[in-house]
């Protein structure tokens, strides 16, 4: 037994000596060796699905942030500082997202974060970046509880570092319902994919729709792994709805539309911004004609403020479209940059400016690519403008622009 103890103590001692002695020499070299008066560097993290199924959305987010940062650096928005983007992949999985968040939190020169795309990834990311006082501005998380906590009757903001630009589920769903009711469409069927986003949309839609005179005649779900939805379509068809509300993303939403029309259920499908991409028309083909989708903010092409973004993006030569969340990502980056203009100016280093940045974002007001941006007491965007788009040919054309409370 003695031998064991001796061995343990020995190992501890030896390891400690080694542990304290070993360290990589890589870090300090980045600033050495070049000009003395070089700008200080502050980094903006991006956490999004850069690989996998949703990578076209994720890349759109990454490129848009890079575009905003590039424009800010070129115009010298923050004197004495250069901004850099650190894109990290979350593969749309919470585990990987969590690692990415920890990686950002451990980098001293990270000031803020744009992300994530999936609400399920945002959940574990929030506490990590909050503990490090890193501001997180989300372009795409729609889950209501992220800003209002578990109990929606008595909302409490869980993390003061979390802001979001896109509308939460409780605005998009009701907005679609409102549009349908103004059009006199009183019966609808709902289908969702049982994911956080889709189910949230349908729940909010149903509540508003039924409270204001509409009737949900069939409520169905699909399994996103499945490809054949004909049994669901037949079931929905027998209820004779005037329209089908779909909560989910386009890889399922578009085939659903096509299969509806094939099976003789010739009514339009209306979805949330998960359908708002031209991939939808590519996948659904002719069946997409007349389908509807809601998205937050006024259409980008009607806003002067969006011009810089759209032109810049087109000139950037990026390999994917901005997607549904590119505009928000661009705005998210600009919100952060706007806050940094005041907080970084006199800051000695990035870490000491973090807390002030988190607070400063609360009061930021800018004219963004997606419209006017400001935050309410929960960190949600106060922009209540939403748009209904209609599919014509292979594009989405704005159909109805309004606000919702």
């Amino acid at each position: 037994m003695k031998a064991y103890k001796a061995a343990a103590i020995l190992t501890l001692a030896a390891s400690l000596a080694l542990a304290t002695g070993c360290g990589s020499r890589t870090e300090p070299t980045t600033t050495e060796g070049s000009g003395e008066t070089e700008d200080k560097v502050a980094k903006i993290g991006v956490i999004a699905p850069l690989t996998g199924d949703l990578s076209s959305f994720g890349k759109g987010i990454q490129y848009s942030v890079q575009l905003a940062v590039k424009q800010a650096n070129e115009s010298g928005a923050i004197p004495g500082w250069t901004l850099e983007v650190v894109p990290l992949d979350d593969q749309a999985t919470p585990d990987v997202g969590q690692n990415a968040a920890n990686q950002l939190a451990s980098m001293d020169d990270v000031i803020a974060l744009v992300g994530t795309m999936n609400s399920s990834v945002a959940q574990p990311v929030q506490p990590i970046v909050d503990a490090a006082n890193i501001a997180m501005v989300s372009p795409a998380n729609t889950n209501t509880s992220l800003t209002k906590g578990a109990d929606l009757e008595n909302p409490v903001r869980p993390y003061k570092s979390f802001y979001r630009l896109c509308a939460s589920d409780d605005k998009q769903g009701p907005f679609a319902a409102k549009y349908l009711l103004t059009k006199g469409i009183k019966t609808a069927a709902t289908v969702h994919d049982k994911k956080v986003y889709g189910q949230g949309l349908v729940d909010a839609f149903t509540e508003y729709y039924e409270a204001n005179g509409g009737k949900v005649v069939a409520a169905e779900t699909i399994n996103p792994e499945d490809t054949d939805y004909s049994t669901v379509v037949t079931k929905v068809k027998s209820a004779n709805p005037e329209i089908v509300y779909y909560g989910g993303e386009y890889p399922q939403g578009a085939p659903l539309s096509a299969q509806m029309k094939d099976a003789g259920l010739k009514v339009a499908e209306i979805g949330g911004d998960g359908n708002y991409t031209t991939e939808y028309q590519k996948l659904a083909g002719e069946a997409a004609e007349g389908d509807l989708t809601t998205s937050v903010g006024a259409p980008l092409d009607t806003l002067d403020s969006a011009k810089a973004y759209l032109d810049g993006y087109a000139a950037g030569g990026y390999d994917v479209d901005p997607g549904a969340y590119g505009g928000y990502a661009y705005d998210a980056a600009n919100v952060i940059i706007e806050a940094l203009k005041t907080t970084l100016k006199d800051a000695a280093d990035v870490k000491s400016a973090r807390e002030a940045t988190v607070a400063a974002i609360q009061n930021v007001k800018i004219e963004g690519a997606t419209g006017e941006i400001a935050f309410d007491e929960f960190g949600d965007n106060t922009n209540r403008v939403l748009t209904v788009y209609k599919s014509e040919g292979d594009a989405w054309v704005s159909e109805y622009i309004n606000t919702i409370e």
Partner: protein
Amino acid sequence: MTIVSPELQSRYGKPARIVAIVGAAIMVFAPMVPWVYTGKILDDMRRAFDPSGLQILFELVALVLLGVLVTSMFGVKLGKYKNVVAWNSTALAASLGGLGYIAAIVLAVAVVGSQKGLGGLAAAEPGLWIALAGSVIASAGSVFLRKSPRATLAKVPSPAWVQILALVAVVAMVLFMAAFAVNLTEVESFLVCCVFIVAAVFVFRATGVMGWLSIATANNRKVLMLAAFAAAFIFPATQDGSDANMTVVAQVLIFAGTALGLNIVVGLAGLLDMGYIAFLGAGAFTAAVLSRSAYATFSIDLPFPVVVLISGTVAALFGLLIGSPTLRVSGDYLAIVTLAFGEIFRITMVNLDGTDGPNITHGSNGIPAIPNLDFFGFDFGKSHEIFGITITRQANYYLLLLVVIAIVIAVFANLNHSRIGRGWVAIREDEMAAEAMGVNTFTLKLLAFAGGAFLAGMVGAVKAYKDTSVTPDQFVFLESCFLLSAVVLGGMGTVMGVLIGATILKLLPEKLRFFDDYRMLIFGALLVVMMRFRPEGIVADERRQMEFHDEDEELADEVEEELVTHHDLLNPEGGK
């Protein structure tokens, strides 16, 4: 390994040794001169007489090579120690290893240099070419050295304290290497470091040190365990208060703990389970549902050890449920049944959301915002300073996981060498025969499922707190596949193998982010190649190895010889 024919070797052996020594001397000198003119490629390799980490690794190889070559020059003068170490084979391994290592560095300089706009190889300084030339010369010389007889080091009797000391040194070395590798932030540095580790393993094998170590390990199993755990406990100290690596390492532990549970079912009892992630999920969901999260549906304030036990028990009950068909189903069919159960578990967790079933898990939202553990006033959510070492949030959970894993390994080791363990192995080898010999196969099979599940459930409980949120999409079929692969890759039925397998499968993807997109492709190919060429895994259980290579006479002899040697050394008085 013979590259040059024995005739040539005996003809040119002597001048070749001189050439090799010259090459080795050049290699020893090379790290003293700058390799690269900028600090932006790999680590800082531009200082004279101040080698960087990666350069020191090269220096190590060079020194070993020079030492071996010079020592073996005395040839016969070594007397009875002549064959203790396989001098020439070691020299060959070291010189080729060094060549491979420097080649990796040259490649890294070329690729990274051109990526970063530093002109590729134009960034190289003479030192790099000197090192490369030295390696080439040394390798050219070494291949002409005569193949040495098998090292007899393993048969040299050594006092217990030497063995213990050596084991401690090895553990410390492994810790140092692990910390060094993990702390390398750049992908290319990490890869180069991996090449070094592989080269080092080959050199050690060639010398015969590995054989000696395995005897020392067998003699001092408990010492090694203790030392390994001590080293693992020290690990957070190497991270300088940063969470970036700790979160990955903690995930490796979660994965390894679950894989160890699976190892009981697959490795010991031979029951193929393809839905194993469900047990981790059952544990995680149980802990989450019982936690003080605002979303928890059965929130009660229980002490954490109780929660862990409940989670384990719930998972074990699932294990019994899933194990019950084993009464009638076996083999591939069992694999499919477990796969189906795994999918049923996931879909059920999604459906228990209040609309399609009772609200227990909040459906695909899962249960977020699980508060940190608070252990007698020790808040797991905060960093703590202990002896001047910062223990961060992730490190807290890492240490907690280590305790859980220690329990898992203790259970595993004891079961493995108990009546129950032998019963499992009997079932794995031949169920019919086992039953005929009076082994209660059904109870034992159920016990394997329940036991493995209990361990996974415990790990799941910690995972829930570490991740702060539990959602059904963390427990998909692919994860079960990964777990199984960790067990198969590392070596079924061995603790060490599973730990290595888990580390490879979780750590490498995190570190090698640049081929993120190709990760799964490589993984698929790896499984096929592995099954083709080394189905017993990296660390082979001896019995298993025999099973997979039953036609390979040479291997059979080798294994037998080794077993006999082991036996002699372990029980010197027993004797044949």
